[in-house]
């Protein structure tokens, strides 16, 4: 699934005749669109599973297959750009199913008037991201649309990988007694992207966390029984946990004080009135791990450069598919799916 931060708010009117920006926010509207418009029409078992990637059997080999569209604006943001994002996003979707990512494709939709220098930068960034992720970009497509039709450029990547024997990861596999881990501090990407938009410019310190998580995930899977993985992209950690609670039919409790957030991200969220739990990430995943193996998987994550701040943040319980937050005061409240994106507030 793709993720980019959008400052616009999405949801004010009853489901009407048109697509709203909120349908892309990763929250309730997105879920509704998928559930009501896509799955019933296209539906087949694997699609309905709604994993980050599909896992299909081809001649006895389990192939993971994913596709993702990237429309982030601005195209260049602190720490990265749409090119690296598009490769890492697809690589991570494969890794979230326990697959080893192997090959990616890229379709570019270019807006007439896009400076070739920018395009060159972005493609170089994609090449670099492929190298770092150990994948090869083996096929692609290019289209050009008229000025005004594409906001610079859009990138659509697809990817395939192989799920090794014995590895079974899926959104429906969480069980009561499991531990919930997060692989790193949350909120960095969304706030970094926002920091480049006019009117909310911060100085320097906020950087997108986009990164390929393959190595980190491999280390975690090797260390213990990792049942569920999902990268916490649009909608943030809170939205992802809601999706997983729903898919697995379990309750999840998160301890607010245990969720890592980098200090500058926290400061930015305080300033803008945002909740970091709902802000998009590009280099962080949520893992649900069997309770017995939680400590070992955590240690393995922390030993990896991309997981140095990994933390156990909650537990899975029996019950209705609700996510609850234990606040810093010790009270418990539901952590709901938002209707759409958060907006900066003055109040």
């Amino acid at each position: 699934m793709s993720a980019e931060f959008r400052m616009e708010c999405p949801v004010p009117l009853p489901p009407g005749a048109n697509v709203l920006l909120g349908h892309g926010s990763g929250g309730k509207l997105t879920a509704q669109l998928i559930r009501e418009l896509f799955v019933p029409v296209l539906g087949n078992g694997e699609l309905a599973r709604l994993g980050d990637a599909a896992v299909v059997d081809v001649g006895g080999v389990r192939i993971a297959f994913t596709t993702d569209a990237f429309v982030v604006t601005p195209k260049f943001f602190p720490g990265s750009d749409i090119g690296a994002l598009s490769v890492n996003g697809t690589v991570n979707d494969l890794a979230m199913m326990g697959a080893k990512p192997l090959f990616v494709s890229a379709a570019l939709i270019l807006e007439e008037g896009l400076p070739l220098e920018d395009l060159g930068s972005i493609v170089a960034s994609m090449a670099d991201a492929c190298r770092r992720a150990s994948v090869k970009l083996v096929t692609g497509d290019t289209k050009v649309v008229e000025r005004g039709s594409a906001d610079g450029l859009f990138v659509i990547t697809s990817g395939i990988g192989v799920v090794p024997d014995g590895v079974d990861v899926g959104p429906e596999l969480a069980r009561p007694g499991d531990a919930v881990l997060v692989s790193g501090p949350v909120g960095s990407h969304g706030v970094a992207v926002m920091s480049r938009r006019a009117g909310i410019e911060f100085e320097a310190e906020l950087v997108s966390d986009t990164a390929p998580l393959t190595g980190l995930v491999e280390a975690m899977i090797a260390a213990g029984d990792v049942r569920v993985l999902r990268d916490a992209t649009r909608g943030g950690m809170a939205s992802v946990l809601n999706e997983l609670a729903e898919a697995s039919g379990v309750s999840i409790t998160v301890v607010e004080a245990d969720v890592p957030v980098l200090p500058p991200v926290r400061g930015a969220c305080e300033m803008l009135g945002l909740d970091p739990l709902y802000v998009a990430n590009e280099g962080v995943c949520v893992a649900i791990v069997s309770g017995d193996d939680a400590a070992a998987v955590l240690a393995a994550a922390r030993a990896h450069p991309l997981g140095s701040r990994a933390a156990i943040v909650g537990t899975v319980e029996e019950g209705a598919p609700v996510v609850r937050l234990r606040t810093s005061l010790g009270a418990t409240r539901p952590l709901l799916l938002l209707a759409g994106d958060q907006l900066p507030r003055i109040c």
Partner: protein
Amino acid sequence: MRFVDEYRDERIARGLLDEIARTVTRPWTIMEVCGGQTHTLIRQGIDQLLPPEIELVHGPGCPVCVTPLALIDEAIEIARRPGSILCSFGDMLRVPGSEEDLFISRAAGADVRVVYSPLDAVEVARRNPDRTVVFFAVGFETTAPANATAVKQAHDLGIENFALLVAHVLVPPAMTAILVSPGNRVQGFLAPGHVCTVMGWTEYEPIARDFRVPIVVTGFEPLDLLEGIRMVVGQLEEGRAEVENQYVRSVRREGNLEAQAVVAEVFEVCDRAWRGIGVIPNSGLRLREPYREHDAELIFPHEGGLASESEECIAGMVLRGRAKPDQCVAYGELCTPEHPLGAPMVSSEGACAAYFLAGRARAGVPR
């Protein structure tokens, strides 16, 4: 973060809760005026942790919620004009107007831009000299100095294409309106800490005296709110009715004189309609000369039809503390953050949205 984290300390919070429980001997109804305070109370679950004798009702301190419907409609009209750019705080984008909201209008092609500071809107005007840039100036007294500075800066620098659509509201007249309304049950107030940072608390002294209600100027972090509640309960139990200051690190009795001066230079007091409540005399601000040439209402006379609210929406009752969100027949069913009937379900510190997002079921209905 200093001056933030330490005011979220769990141990001290528990200590304050215990102290409140020890002090209270009978039921009391307390109103927190500010939407930001509502947000913290609900988000942290403080109202669940308080002893049952204490009932918190949420006040109208949410400028998003009380901005008149007609002004929302006007903002949308201005945004839809090809030659304008409408700049706004993020809070306003989802507030329903009579037909739609700013966000929908943006999807239909209107140039609507979210800004963090009103000075950013002046910058937009500077960079777009051929368009009229209108800043939707909502807020209580806290935001008035910032909005005043923006229009003063534009005026002094000769940025003629910058205008304000003014929707400022003032707190003390609203508190008084609540206290005089028949059926009022509010016995004590947590006054808004950032409004008082700017204005001081002298305006609240006659209210405390004349209505015999304790008023405690309170901050926004969990320990601030608990301490403020403790102080109000203390006064109520002792039969006192004074203005006290909990938010000592930011509020002084006289407030911020420089900020008050710029507000007085740019604005003057006027009557204002509060959405869901009605006209409260002398409860708003409007531009005074020589800044009237930057008044968007004069530049763009309102052309639209009569503003119309949903019939089910009881926002007015909620804003006055006369009803709780979960008592509304539309709450959680017809009216949710996805399709709000009224403003308090939109703004994250609106009472209805705060309840909804904290997972409160409709009274008597299992969720």
